[in-house]
């Protein structure tokens, strides 16, 4: 039913090919899961990808079209998405407007909201996991680190989310985190779209804390009750949170609503951080410019 044409990527647990669906010549991507590499049978990332993509169906989440076994390999047939947000942000020859950014952020938040209302945490949101369809639609992809929202007493690993997009509670080693970790990642991506350079690029996990708190202020018991109980809290350098003017200087030409939205997403205390619903309902998406029509974005 499918042909594999050329290899377009290789990760730790899978090789991605470009292919065609024979029935209608539709372009597809085939993610072939390497099975020999994982001594414990089927790779956990593959299990997660299969488990959650089977349940999620949304215009802004990558679609799993089929799954099949071949030559003892597991193959995921995914919709073909030729580009991603990282490529766009990095390519300085591509000029994009405030309306374009608003459109991308809106689509990203809708995709993440769909995951959250299905009680799925993505846990690896970053520009190159936000793929772009030929029609310009942003789709959340790569559910290899996803998991269901835990039962209350379950302990979660904090070693998730690519470092630059990792929420402060994860940097502190939290074990009972929530949807808020995904919202933080989207907030950092939003900043990166505006700046066109990574917003919080830490060199390592310790530096990531340093970079994060220098940019956004070191959290205190006042704004984040119980934060001081994290073991690594006491060694922190204390930085003041940026003033509104300082933020405005950082993100020139963005509206006040945009800044409010970003501050809501980058709220240090995860208990107060905005949910995807609050983000989607924020003034930013109601004020001009309207989000660009994805198909018209360059």
């Amino acid at each position, binding site marked *: 039913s499918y042909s594999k044409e050329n290899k377009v990527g290789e990760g730790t647990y899978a090789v991605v090919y470009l292919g065609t669906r024979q029935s209608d010549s539709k372009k597809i991507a085939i993610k072939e899961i390497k099975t020999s590499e994982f001594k414990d*049978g089927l790779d956990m990332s593959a299990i997660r990808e299969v488990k959650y993509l089977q349940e999620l169906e949304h215009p802004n989440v990558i679609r799993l079209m089929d799954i099949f076994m071949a030559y003892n390999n*597991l193959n995921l047939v995914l919709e073909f998405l030729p580009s991603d947000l990282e490529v766009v942000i990095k390519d300085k020859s591509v000029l994009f407007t405030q309306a374009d950014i608003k459109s991308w952020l809106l689509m990203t938040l809708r995709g993440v909201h769909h995951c959250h209302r299905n009680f799925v945490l993505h846990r690896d949101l970053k520009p190159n996991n936000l793929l772009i369809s030929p029609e310009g639609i942003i789709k959340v992809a790569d559910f290899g680190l996803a998991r269901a929202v835990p039962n209350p007493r379950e302990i979660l690993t904090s070693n998730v989310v690519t470092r630059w997009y990792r929420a402060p509670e994860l940097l502190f080693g939290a074990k009972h985190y929530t949807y808020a970790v995904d919202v933080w990642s989207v907030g950092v991506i939003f900043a990166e779209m505006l700046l066109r350079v990574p917003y919080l690029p830490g060199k390592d996990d310790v530096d990531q804390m340093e970079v994060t708190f220098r940019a956004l202020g070191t959290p205190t018991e006042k704004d984040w009750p119980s934060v001081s109980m994290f073991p690594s809290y006491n060694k922190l350098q204390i930085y003041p949170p940026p003033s509104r003017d300082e933020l405005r200087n950082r993100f020139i030409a963005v509206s006040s609503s945009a800044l409010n939205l970003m501050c809501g997403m980058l709220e240090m205390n995860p208990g107060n951080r905005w949910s995807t619903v609050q983000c989607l309902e924020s003034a930013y998406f109601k004020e001009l410019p309207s989000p660009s029509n994805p198909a018209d974005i360059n």
Partner: protein
Amino acid sequence: YRHSSQYRHWSYTVGHLREKRIETNLKAVKLIQAKLQKFIDEQGDNISQSELQTLKSKAVPLTMEEELKLVNFYTKKVQVIGKHLNLPTEVIATSITFFRRFYLEESVMKYDPKELVHTTIFLACKAENYFIGVDSFAKKAKSTKDEILKYEFKLLESLKFTLLNHHPYKPLHGFFLDIQQMLYGKVDLKYMGKMYDKCRRKITEALLTDAVYHFTPPQITLAVLIDEDELLVTRYLQMKFGKPEETVEETGTEIVTPAKENAQKEKQEVKQEVKQEVKQEGEKSEQNGKPEDHPNTEKEEEGAETKQEEEEEEAEVPDGKDENTIELDKLMEQIMACKEMIASMSVVSTQDAKLIYAKNYYCQYPDIV
């Protein structure tokens, strides 16, 4: 729930489920018969008449009913081993679910249930984020890495690659909260706590029955709850989904809980506000000149009326509940049917299982016979 893979791939009518099992059994019977015939042909003259008779009397393919008994027997083993390994309730539930679904698609005459027990539990651990390395799992389960991994792919494929399960435990927690809300001040919380624990155990038993294919997780939860305390749950459901007049008739005295009282007060206030608004609207249009100054005055007035009616209607929706789209008697029917199905679950004796297993064994190894 309708979007979930559990609903889309694993819910059947009773008839459909029976057909499915018969079809799976038939496929395997054909394979076994061909295999036996081939064996006999290969023996040629080496096989005596009496041997042939013995073979034909012992190596008889299993019926669908015998298969189902064997599957149920080994499903119980999955549960016992899961408990022995100290796995969380939901991981055991997923193991049971995977094992039973596998044998909807495959026959015990093709895949020996003994060989799938550990693989199912191992995959369930992975699927529920309760990862145990295969080596330590093999040690705990007194099995080997190869045996455990041998059918992992096959299991995943037969599960149609659907790994996310909605078990009735979370709905139990949800109803535990909502009963407290709807019957606020009317239920003994200690009693509720005991009931909760008992129902959790009963839910696991329910997962061993076909109820999981015919009813949704919340319906199974309500069936288990109503089995535990019919009066309490019936009253709760009447309050939740019954029509207001029903609630009063049925229970004689309407249960007016604080939640309800507050909501009733709110309802009165809403009505007052709406009336006030409409009155002001009327006064305003009088004050600001003749109606003709306001085009569509008719429509506006109308608008106000329909708006008021709407508001009133909304206010009519019984308090403490949102828009109710569930018909109580239909729901009760479902729940009672589910309760019957769970109760009718028959336990397979070890003796029975041994006989069936032996029959299957002879089919697999005619030379031994």
